[in-house]
């Protein structure tokens, strides 16, 4: 009889303690939920894309496995944060980092205009009209940048804008990929 009485107390008490623990920990963590790609360590899927800009050749994902580690930058002309990222990408390109781009859901004229206005760090740019590459690579938005090694294996994913403070990490990841 004592047992049943205590159960009425202990079950809610236990739930209360567990809830407080989970809630406190939950409040202290970083609020943003980012969905990381699970394709890190796997090969970039084979995909052919039409050219996104008039000035640069198109990107086929086979080009990503040509022996040199490179960055794959996923962007769009309608993506406002991508404008913030553009100078950093230009700087990386000037340092000799090979960068390829994929424009998501874009039209050639808009891409051209974006590149004229904000600079063109890309060697090749592919057009992904239906987010297909994003799905294949586990990308969930723009901008995102992937580090791909010489064999076409995805080594690192940077979600969001690449700011000046992220450059070192990116270069580090490129070195680890064999640059």
């Amino acid at each position, binding site marked *: 009889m004592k047992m*049943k009485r205590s159960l009425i107390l202990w079950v809610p008490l236990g739930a209360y303690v567990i809830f407080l623990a989970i809630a406190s920990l939950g409040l202290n963590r970083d609020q943003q939920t980012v969905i990381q790609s699970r394709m890190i360590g796997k090969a970039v899927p084979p995909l052919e894309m039409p050219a996104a800009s008039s000035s640069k050749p198109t990107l086929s994902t086979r080009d990503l496995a040509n022996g040199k580690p490179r960055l794959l930058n996923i962007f769009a002309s*309608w993506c*406002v944060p991508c404008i913030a990222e553009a100078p950093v990408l230009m700087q990386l390109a000037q340092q000799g980092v090979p960068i390829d781009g994929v424009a998501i859901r874009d039209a050639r004229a808009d891409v051209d205009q974006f590149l004229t206005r904000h600079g063109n760090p890309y060697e090749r740019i592919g057009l992904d*009209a*239906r987010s297909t590459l994003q799905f294949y*690579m586990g990308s969930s938005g723009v901008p995102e940048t992937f580090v791909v090694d010489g064999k076409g294996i995805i080594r690192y994913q940077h979600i969001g804008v690449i700011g000046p403070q992220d450059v070192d990490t990116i270069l580090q990841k490129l070195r680890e990929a064999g640059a």
Partner: protein
Amino acid sequence: MMRLLTALLMALSVAMLAPQSASAQSALPPAPYANRQLDDPALEAKASALMHTIRCLTCQSQSIADSDASMASDMRSEIRERIAAGEDPEAIRAWLIERYGDWISYKPTNDPILWPLWAAPVLLISGGGWLAYSRMRRRKGAKA
């Protein structure tokens, strides 16, 4: 002032007749099967059931079936086309989970981390049942 306001409102409505080229979303029209059902009702039912359990990547908390976001629309089209091509819904789900993790599926997977979720109803019901049973027994014993 009123006439100016009305004129502005009418101009805005006319502007809305043109295709959307809004600020923070894609200029392209939706993918072919984003908002178009498959011709075969059985296949469409399968696709619809799957889409209601796949989470939208760019929304707060919605399935891709309930969202107008461009990525959700593209994913709907992708799913419908794959189902029309004969793929099994669970295979498509697995393909998505392979890329985005368990997060993207509202339907829980067999991942061990989710076992407590399934254990919970069993534990709670048996716990409750035991509580009720022993209480009844005690009651009967006390009465006798």
